[in-house]
């Protein structure tokens, strides 16, 4: 539909940390294009003076007290870890420094 290009799809995939094969990219160009074009419908509405719904409920100031509560024990913390040494969660070496 020309609405979204292959480059756009590739850029969005890198932002979203997804790696797409070429045929998936092609499929998404079409599907996303159709969906985004449908979403353009919203431009029919004049919303210049409308406040956005930033929060679903009209509530403010929900807080908790500064009280320490129980933490997980190490066993629970690492229960689902794909890789750990019992002290740290392990990932392939992070090359670029913080």
């Amino acid at each position: 539909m020309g609405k979204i290009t292959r480059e756009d799809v590739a850029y969005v995939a890198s932002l979203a940390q997804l790696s797409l094969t070429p045929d998936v990219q092609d499929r998404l160009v079409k599907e996303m294009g159709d969906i985004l074009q449908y979403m353009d419908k919203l431009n029919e509405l004049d919303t210049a003076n409308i406040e956005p719904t930033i929060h679903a409920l009209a509530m403010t100031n929900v807080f908790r007290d500064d009280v320490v509560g129980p933490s997980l024990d190490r066993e629970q913390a690492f229960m689902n870890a794909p890789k750990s040494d019992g002290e740290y969660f392990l990932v392939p070496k992070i090359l670029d420094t913080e």
Partner: protein
Amino acid sequence: MEYEPVIGLEVHVELNTRSKVFCSCSTNFHAEPNTNVCPICLGMPGVLPVMNRAVVDAAIMVGLAMNCTVSKWSKMDRKNYFYPDLPKNYQISQYDLPLCYGGHLEVAVDGRLHRIGITRVHIEEDTARNVHTIGGGDSGIDFNRSTIPLLEIVSEPDIHSAQEAFCYLTALKQILQYLKVSDCNMEEGSLRAEANISIRPAGSEKLGVKTEVKNVASFSGTFKAIEYEIARQTRALEAGEKIVQETRGWDADRAITFSQRTKESAHDYRYFPEPDLVPIAVDDAWIDRIQARMPELPRARFLRFQEQYGLSPYDAGVLTSTIGMANYFEETVDAGAPPKQAANWIMGDLQALLTERKIGIEDCNASPRKLADMIGLIDNDTISGKIAKELLPEMVETGLAPKALIDQKGLVQISDETALLDAVRLVIGANPGPVADYRGGKKQAFGFLVGQVMKATKGKANPKLVNEILQRELSRE
């Protein structure tokens, strides 16, 4: 070509609340890795954040101390990016509606006051800590630090030298320390500074291309890094090169900044309002409550100390450098000590003792009242200053009152004229040579004779009286 440096500083401060900002895990720094963690700060499925009220209180207090406007309505936002130290792969922060904005700080630089604008103070959560020394081709991640509360304090680009930056950071740290909201320890990471640095031709309004210098571990490191970066940019421009907008790290060993262009060169953070948290509405009553809890700030106290106690700017500066010392000083004066003497003892002998023993002044066993008593005992000639110098370490060590220690150790100085006369006569009798020297015009011999009297009385003789009596005796003949 004259270049003017233009510097803005971004400081991240870890708040010293008991629990984290969005969960109730402890913020205790010394815990074993991954023991202050829960499903929320681990970013597990199904969790939700709940805001710690004490964090908002601290943020408002810091904002007020920096003369900011506290926003009546602000919200949290999600800052989206992927990194292993970010468990949800988004950070809950504040984007377009920070809690505090539009303030300023008055900073003394080489005797002149500079006003540095504060763009904003906002709340966000800290990330986890990456550990690179695991071995086996892996990095380790410790989530104890994840979700620790941070305040981000951003200055306007009103800073124009490394020295000014250093003074700004010192003043900022001092205020935070007075407010007791953070340990402000750069080595431990509870205070982090990043500098945005650019240069422009002197007199020009337009801003140059800036670089961001990160990863500096101390204030002096920041000073050096900024100086280096200013020089580097100046050299580059003079050689006709362009400055690249990038992040640079500081290598303290080689004393240089180096490029840290990461894989994600363009950070599209896709900010949007955090739907799991509700807005923060601050009314005047809340601001008043915080204002009422605020201590007198460093600069105000510095000026008051000069005016109220007649202290010199130097003395006032040293005494107000920490809130602990300032409080200690005032309590000592309130307990009856003359300000100048109190100042001298605190800045001199007491501070030296505390430094040696690595104790903070708030933890000093010798209370202000006891110090005041000690000074009183000098003033009424019960002990000499010299004796007091020996007494003070005992007071700090044991926490005993000076009077009790004096009695215990028999340190009352000898002011009995008769006893002193005896001692003087004995010394004169035992030292014919020096006596003759003195009478023959050698003034130094007098000091020797005084020393002998002090020795004979085990240091307890009242030095003033010894002087008088010795003078009298030696001039008789």
